[in-house]
């Protein structure tokens, strides 16, 4: 939080930076932010924005960090075809370094209105809001649905993208292909690990009219490394005789995520009619690895605007199959005789179910545009987390209680309020 306050104060101290003088010189500094507060009534779970966050908001806590963000952007116009953009974002990263707070740093070559090539660090474009989920002022909701965005820790793509835009009648078709690599933290109950992905190839299509938009995205990535947890589990299982853990060697090898492909698909649409807006997205994640189960997620939202106010409802879900560790037919009686045997067994159970998110949320919310660049937002989420489906949440107390289910079923209410702004 102290980093965030320092950044906000720095910005307030230099309002002249956003003056038009900079526009004349071809350089402009601007920014955005969200000052948020969140609380939940969960007995087991702590709210977090996505699975990269190692800390969250627990019962009887009012948490600022997990929902507060501050970003600064520098746009430099080099000539009519070339420009450069740098953006730095503080969003309670687990470690603060120039690398971790740099969310964009690219050079763009745009010879005409149809073509644009960006080289460098750009926002990752897996799902509809992936590029701007940290920019609260850009969307109506107080929180983007965790069911879809909570499972994606990645924020940037280090590589290249090419965009082609064309028009016919009153429609605009925007197509983008991209390639590169990325990395992000993934945090569980008691550890945080960096995950690297490379060989990212994707395509994004958007067909836009004035009052509707249809988007489709397809991305393939390859996992570039194993986590140390996966390595230690694999190593431990491979040393157990088949009499205790049937097919222990092939099973231990199947835990490896190295070079495994993950495919992300998103279909979304927006329709505006009078003062109403309907917005929906469905996503599908599939992997070759049994560690990452097939995941279907989505949401439907309806928004009613009334002057400077917008009232909305969201219904969101994630659905995936849990891994049933009893299907391995491990002889737990014999395994319990060896030191650490049952810890290994539980570790495999948790690891194989880590990505198996199962929950549904119904939300009601309000956005009030106080000024042209300042909005107040409030949202109440009513979430049902299914048994073993609580990946999107943190539970710090659970590891100290032997044999307790890591993620029990629970119904949780979460209240989120924030002030979002741009300058």
């Amino acid at each position, binding site marked *: 939080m102290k980093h965030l306050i320092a950044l906000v104060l720095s910005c307030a101290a230099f309002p002249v930076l956003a003056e*038009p003088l900079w*526009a004349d010189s071809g350089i*402009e500094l*601007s920014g*955005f932010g969200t000052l948020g507060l969140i609380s939940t009534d969960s007995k087991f779970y702590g709210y977090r924005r996505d699975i990269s966050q190692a800390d969250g908001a627990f019962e009887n806590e009012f948490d600022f960090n997990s929902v507060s963000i501050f*970003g600064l*952007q520098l*746009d430099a*116009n080099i000539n*009519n075809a070339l*420009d450069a*953009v740098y*953006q730095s974002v503080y969003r309670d990263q687990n470690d603060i370094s120039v690398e971790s707070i740099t969310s*964009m740093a*690219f050079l*763009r070559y*745009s010879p*005409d*209105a*149809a073509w*644009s090539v*960006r080289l460098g660090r*750009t*926002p990752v474009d897996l799902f509809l809001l992936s*590029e*701007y989920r940290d*920019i609260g*002022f*850009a*969307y109506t909701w107080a929180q983007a649905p965790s069911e879809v965005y909570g499972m994606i820790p990645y924020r940037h793509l280090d590589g290249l993208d090419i965009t082609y*835009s064309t*028009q016919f009648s*009153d429609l*605009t078709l925007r197509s983008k292909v991209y390639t590169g690599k990325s990395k992000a933290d993934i945090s569980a109950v008691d550890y945080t690990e960096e995950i690297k992905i490379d060989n990212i190839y994707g395509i994004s299509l958007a067909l*836009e009219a*004035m009052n509707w938009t249809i988007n489709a995205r397809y991305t393939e990535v390859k996992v570039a490394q194993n986590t140390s947890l996966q390595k230690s589990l694999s190593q431990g299982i491979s040393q157990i005789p088949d009499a205790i853990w049937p097919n222990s060697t092939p099973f231990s090898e199947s835990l490896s995520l190295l070079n495994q492909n993950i495919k992300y698909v998103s279909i979304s649409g927006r329709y505006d009619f009078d003062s109403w807006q309907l917005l929906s997205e469905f996503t599908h994640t599939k992997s070759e690895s049994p560690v990452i189960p097939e995941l279907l997620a989505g949401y439907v939202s309806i928004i009613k605007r009334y*002057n*400077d106010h917008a009232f909305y409802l969201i219904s969101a879900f994630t659905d995936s199959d849990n891994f049933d560790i009893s299907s391995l037919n491990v002889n737990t009686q014999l395994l319990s005789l060896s030191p650490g045997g049952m810890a290994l067994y539980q570790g495999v159970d948790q690891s194989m179910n880590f990505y198996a998110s199962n929950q549904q949320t119904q939300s009601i919310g309000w956005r009030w*545009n106080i*000024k*042209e*660049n300042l*909005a107040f937002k409030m949202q109440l989420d009513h979430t049902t987390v299914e048994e073993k489906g609580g990946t999107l949440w943190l539970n710090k107390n659970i590891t100290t209680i032997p044999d307790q289910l890591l993620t029990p079923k629970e119904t949780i209410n979460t209240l989120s309020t924030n002030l979002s702004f*741009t300058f």
Partner: protein
Amino acid sequence: MIRVTKYVLAFALCLIALSSPASPNDVIVVVNINNPTDQLTKSQVIDLFMGKYLAFPNGIKASTVDIDGKGNLKKRFYQQLVGMSLARVNSFWSRIKFTGRAKPPLKQPNEDAIIRFITLEKDAISYISRSKLNENLKVVFEFNE
């Protein structure tokens, strides 16, 4: 016959009066007088100012220019163009600008600065009050068309 002609004339004058004659406060979209574009449709102006397609009909890249901050002219322009408040326009643009998807419009502090800029830049386009129109500018779109 004279009486009928008088009524026809009176009716015609009423029609002209009701057809909202150009007012000095009207918001008009202008380019440099040497820009080959003579006319734009509302849809084309929306594409330019909402970052959808930043080119004139002849394919030449357009430099959209906006007034910095708020102000009545800017408010009226976007309300008439897309029926949005400035807060919603800013929200829309923050999606484009802060994702690096497209270059936002250049900012000028007021109408006079916009006029100076367009006078110098052949490919610039912006909006002003009709009363500020001069011989160096060309009107390419009017809301009361």
